[in-house]
Structures are given as structure tokens and as C-alpha cells.
């Protein structure tokens, strides 16, 4: 009896070992880890990101997957909490052993998980427009950056409305660094920043801010306030008849404030974007139709959701080009400079030096009825800034974030 038990244990152990050492079949799924908030203060923005990812995965799996392998999407909801972002990034990389990690909304969440990803060899794709400057060999960014958004919009605003600008920005790395970009560009163009106000996340009352703006008498306002609470600014400014032109790198295409607030709160808002739902090219219309068929209750397909959709197609393109899911092999494909896909906005390519993405940028303006119209088409703009300050990921593996006041040592 005893002997038989022991034998059966040995047999059992052997069969487990056999299972573990069995060769992985080509049909094993590719695991994509996704971290997006679908609850908490940024749920408004995170939900379309999850939906975009789901849509892309469904389409790719239906069409046969990536190199014949199906995609398995593992989504976790960090609820807007940076500590949870870190915990979940560790879990996805070490326990679930994902092949790639995608996600993060705020720049704070991205900076929270980047060090964790840097200790692994798993690629990380950040899918938001942001304040730019991350030169990280392990990260691919597919959202727009300041040279695509600020270097286009700020000169336009100064020419059209005047040289005096007032800034209201969220008080964390995104707002602070974006404000720094604004200061640099305004100075280059011979204008002045007549006021800058950094607002803690979660603040919802703006009577004093509105009065400060009226005191400073700017020609226009740069609004890079973040989160649902801070968006109350628009309603309160409209009620106080502030009625100044506004420019932003995140409003309309990202937070669809023109759909969430009653007109005319967002009147005279301008933004430069690679995607907004009002784009009406045939490719964009087709994409919107597919999205709304899958998610009929979506209020607005924002640029984050759109980028999240593209990210999975970009990953597919890289893996198929490399015939591998290893970061080093994917980077060889990026280094050729031909890592492009046909996105709904047109062709977008990953820049080898910075691993950021080129985009076709358009300037949009909102009227008093909250209709959006395209004012200017800038064509395709490369993410050139990082390369111009000396970031070259084809030659040197870096992992730092640079800003106009914090450049790499030559």
C-alpha cells in the first residue's frame, strides 16, 4: 500500500514534469497585458481605451491572430491608483508572463510602471498623447507629443488671438512639463505668459482662478487641466462670461468636453489632434462604424481609445516583422524605419531614434453650438524633438525622460 502510494506520487511528478517540458505549440496565444482605469476619476477616459483594445483584439483574432497565434488580452483595472498600477504591472509581468504590456493614462501612472518594466525584457506601449521626452529603449509611445501639438497650436493661437497667454494646468508632471513647453514656445514667438496657475487634482471650484484670469487680461488661455473635477472650470468660466479663446492639447479629442457640457461652455476652444471623432475620411468613417457596431453606447471615440486600438495593430506589425515577440527583435524592426501601419488617420510610423509615432495632425475649433470644424491640416508630423536633443535609441539604450530644461548631457 505504502509502496503503491509512493509510486503513484512519482508517476504523478513525472507526468507534471512532462507537461512542463512539453514544447510550446505555435497555437499558444500571445498574451497582452492591459492596464486601463475603468473606475475612479479617469474612468471617463479609460473606458474607451479598454473598448479600443477589445475591438482590435477581436478583429485580429477573427482574421487569424498574429502569426497564426490568437491574442489573449488580460485587462486589470488600477482604478486611477499609481500604487495599483505598479502592483498590477508586477503581476502581469511575473505571474501572467505577458508578452507585452500596454496602458496607463496619466503621466504619473506611466512613470510609476516604467521602472518596473525596465527591470524586465517585456516591451511596454504607452498609448496617450503626453508631455513628451521619454527616451526609453523598452517603451514605444504611439500618442502625440508636444512637437506635434504645442509647436503647431501655440504659434497659431498667438497669431490669431494675441501674444499674451494665461495657463491653467494640473499640478503633476504632465501639467508642469507641458507648461514648460508652452513657456519655451511662447518666448520663441515673442509673446508673454501673463499668468500660470497649477491646480491640485480634484479641485472643482474656480471662482478665484477666473478672477485671476480677468485681472491678468490674457488674449487666450492654455487649458491643460486634468480630470473630471477640474473640468468644472469650463462651466464656471462660461457662467462668469469669461469668453476668452482657449487652446489645449487634451481637450475635445481626449475628454470630449464638448459632448459632456451643455453649449456654449467650450465655445472658442482649439486643439491639435491626430484623431477626433469628427474626422470624416472614408477610412475614419469605416473605423467609426465598426466601433459603434461593437459599442453602441459609446458617447465619443476619443484619441486615447483610438491610440489603444492602433497600439495592438502596431504590435502585430512588429511581431510579424520580427517573427518573434522578444523586445530586442521588435526593436530591430523599428530600427529599419519602416515600422508603419495604415491607421484610420492614414499611415503612421514608429521613429527609430525615439520609438515615438508620427501622426497626421489637424487643428480643430469648437463653436458656440459645440460643433467641431477642422481649421488647419498640418499633414504628417514626425516626433522629432527627442532625436534633435540627442536621444538615439538605435545607438544607446536610455531610459530617462527629458524636458526643455533637462536635456541629455552631450
Amino acid at each position, binding site marked *: 500500500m505504502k509502496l503503491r502510494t509512493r509510486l503513484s506520487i512519482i508517476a504523478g511528478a513525472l507526468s507534471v514534469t512532462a507537461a512542463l517540458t512539453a514544447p510550446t505549440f505555435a497555437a499558444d496565444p500571445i498574451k497582452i497585458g492591459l492596464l486601463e482605469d*475603468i*473606475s*475612479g*476619476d479617469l*474612468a*471617463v477616459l479609460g*473606458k474607451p481605451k479598454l473598448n479600443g483594445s477589445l475591438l482590435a483584439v477581436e478583429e485580429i483574432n477573427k482574421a487569424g491572430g498574429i502569426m497564426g497565434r490568437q491574442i489573449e488580452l488580460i485587462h486589470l483595472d488600477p482604478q486611477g491608483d499609481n500604487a495599483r498600477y505598479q502592483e498590477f504591472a508586477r503581476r502581469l509581468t511575473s505571474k501572467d508572463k505577458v508578452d507585452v504590456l500596454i496602458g496607463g493614462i496619466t503621466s504619473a501612472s506611466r512613470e510609476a510602471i516604467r521602472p518596473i518594466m525596465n527591470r524586465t525584457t517585456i516591451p511596454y506601449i504607452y498609448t496617450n498623447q503626453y508631455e513628451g521626452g521619454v527616451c526609453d529603449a523598452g517603451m514605444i509611445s504611439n500618442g502625440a507629443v508636444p512637437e506635434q501639438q504645442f509647436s503647431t497650436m501655440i504659434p497659431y493661437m498667438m497669431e490669431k488671438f494675441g501674444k499674451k497667454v494665461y495657463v491653467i494646468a494640473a*499640478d503633476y508632471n504632465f501639467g508642469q512639463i507641458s507648461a514648460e513647453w508652452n513657456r519655451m514656445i511662447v518666448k520663441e514667438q515673442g509673446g508673454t505668459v501673463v499668468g500660470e*496657475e*497649477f*491646480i*491640485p487634482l*480634484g*479641485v*472643482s*471650484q474656480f*471662482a*478665484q*482662478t477666473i*478672477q*485671476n484670469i*480677468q*485681472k491678468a*487680461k490674457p488674449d487666450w488661455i492654455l487649458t491643460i487641466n486634468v480630470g*473630471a*473635477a477640474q*473640468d*468644472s472650470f469650463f*462651466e*464656471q468660466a*462660461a*457662467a*462668469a*462670461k*469669461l469668453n476668452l479663446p482657449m487652446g489645449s492639447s487634451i481637450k475635445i479629442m481626449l475628454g470630449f468636453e464638448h*459632448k*459632456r*457640457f*451643455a*453649449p456654449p*461652455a467650450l465655445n472658442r476652444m482649439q486643439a491639435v489632434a491626430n484623431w477626433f471623432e469628427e474626422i470624416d475620411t472614408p477610412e475614419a468613417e469605416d473605423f467609426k462604424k465598426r466601433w459603434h457596431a461593437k459599442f453602441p*453606447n459609446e*458617447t465619443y471615440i476619443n484619441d486615447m481609445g483610438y491610440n489603444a486600438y492602433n497600439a495592438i495593430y502596431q504590435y502585430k506589425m512588429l511581431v510579424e516583422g520580427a517573427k518573434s515577440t522578444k523586445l530586442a527583435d521588435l526593436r530591430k524592426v523599428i530600427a529599419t524605419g519602416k515600422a508603419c501601419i495604415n491607421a484610420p488617420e492614414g499611415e503612421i510610423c514608429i521613429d527609430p531614434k525615439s520609438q515615438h509615432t508620427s501622426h497626421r495632425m489637424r487643428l480643430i475649433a469648437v463653436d458656440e453650438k459645440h460643433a467641431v470644424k477642422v481649421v488647419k491640416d498640418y499633414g504628417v508630423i514626425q516626433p522629432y524633438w527627442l532625436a534633435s536633443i540627442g536621444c538615439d535609441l538605435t545607438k544607446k539604450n536610455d531610459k530617462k525622460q527629458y524636458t526643455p530644461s533637462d536635456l541629455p548631457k552631450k
Partner: protein
Amino acid sequence: MLYQFADVFAFLILSAAGLAIVFGMMGVINMAHGEFIMCGAYVTVGLVHAGFPLPLAQLCGTLAAGIIGVIVEMAIVRKFYTRPLDSLLATWGLSLVVTQGMLILVGSSVAGIGTPPGSFAVGDYTFSVYRLVLFAGALAALGFVYIIFMRTKFGVHARATMQNAKMARALGVPVGRVYALSFGIGAGLAGLCGALYAPTMTLIPTMGATFIVESFVTVVVGGSNVLLGTAPAGILLAAVRTTLNAWHGQIIGQIGMLIAVILIIRILPEGISGFLTRKQR
């Protein structure tokens, strides 16, 4: 400056009035206070979208929050009067359930309704008339609380119950009903806050959280008496915050207000009303 002061004062008083009753008087650490505010706001906005005029919708929002408050008291809070720390957990749990439930049921955001138009100019500055309505609302809320708790039979019963429930019951006060109604009034005032602020804010399920710090801070500084405590606390904190906001922006305003709170509860552990009552004796 006066306008700014009135604005901050209104925000503090409206967000704190309901909590002053529930936490200050009844001693229930109500973490779901923000969700009653959210409830008032959502009902208001929903009714406006359905075609109701704004003031009527706001009234309904207030009443809805009040009625839900009575139900919550009878179903949950009632069991926890002798266990204040457990009431914290229970109401916090309720708050999580409600926010997540709203997120699932009505989605992550609701279209706003726009602030009623109207503005006036003083020199170079233009102000929204609606902000004055908010200020009036804050004063009205204080007046309402004063009349209910100081000038009615219910008020006498309520104050007696809060001081010594057993004795009050022995004297024939319907203690259970008094608790339920007091909680309902507190929740209704929270609903009023949400209803009044609904046109000026982004509507999301977690919107209550933007009020909760200010409301607890005001109530703690004020102490247990709504009229003697909450109103002076509102004036004091609004003055601190307005001055600092004007001097160096919102961050300093917020930091300064919280430092003021720490100092006040260090010097006056029973809050302003405790200090005033002691002085009277």
C-alpha cells in the same frame, strides 16, 4: 474679494450642513456623505434632461436624497449607533457600492445641463449670478437648520435624543423616528448641495469625493453644534482660503486651509462650538 469669500463660504457650508447634523450631532461618521451629494446632483440633472424646470428638479433632488437617507438610516445606520467605528466602515462600504453601481448603471459620465445664464460686471471683472444663488442657498440651509432644530417640537426632541437617548425615550420621545428623520434631513441637505452645484460641475459617479474633505474639515473645526459651530467654521476657513487663493493660487489656498484646520483642532479640541459653549458657561 467679497464675492470670492461668499463663493468659498457657500461651498464649505453647503457641503458641510448635512454632515454637521449626521456627524456633528448624531455622531455617525458618514463616509457616504458624498454619495448623497452625488444623488442630489444626478436626480436634478436627470429631471432637467426630462424637461423639468431647474428649481423644481433641484427640489426633487433634495427630497430624493432625504428619502433615501431615511431608508438608509432604518436599514443600515440604525444598527451602529453604539459602534461609531463600525459605522465608518459600513457607510464607507455603502459609498463604494453606490459609486461603482452608478458607474455600471449610468456610465462614467452624464451630459451636463449648463449654468443658468446671467452675469454682472464690477469694473473689469464679470461674475456669474448663479454663484450668488449658491451663497443664498448656503444661508437658507443654515436658516432652515436653525428653525427646525431650535424652533420646533421635533427640534427639542432631536436635541434631547442626541444628548441622552434613554432618558428621551423614557419621557415618551419616539427616538427611532427622530433618528431616522434627523439622518434624512442631513442626507437631504447633502442632496441640496449636489442639486445646487449640479449645473456648475462635471457629473461623474465619484463627484461626491470632491466635497468630502471640505465637509469633514468644516464639521470637525465647527464642533458638535451646527449653528454655533459650522457657520463660524465656514466663515473662518473661507477667509483663510480666499486670502491665500488670491495671494498665491489654489495650491497654497488648499494647503493653508488644511494647516489652519490642524492648528484649530490643536488649540480647540472641541471645535469652535465647544469653545463658544464653554465661554458661555
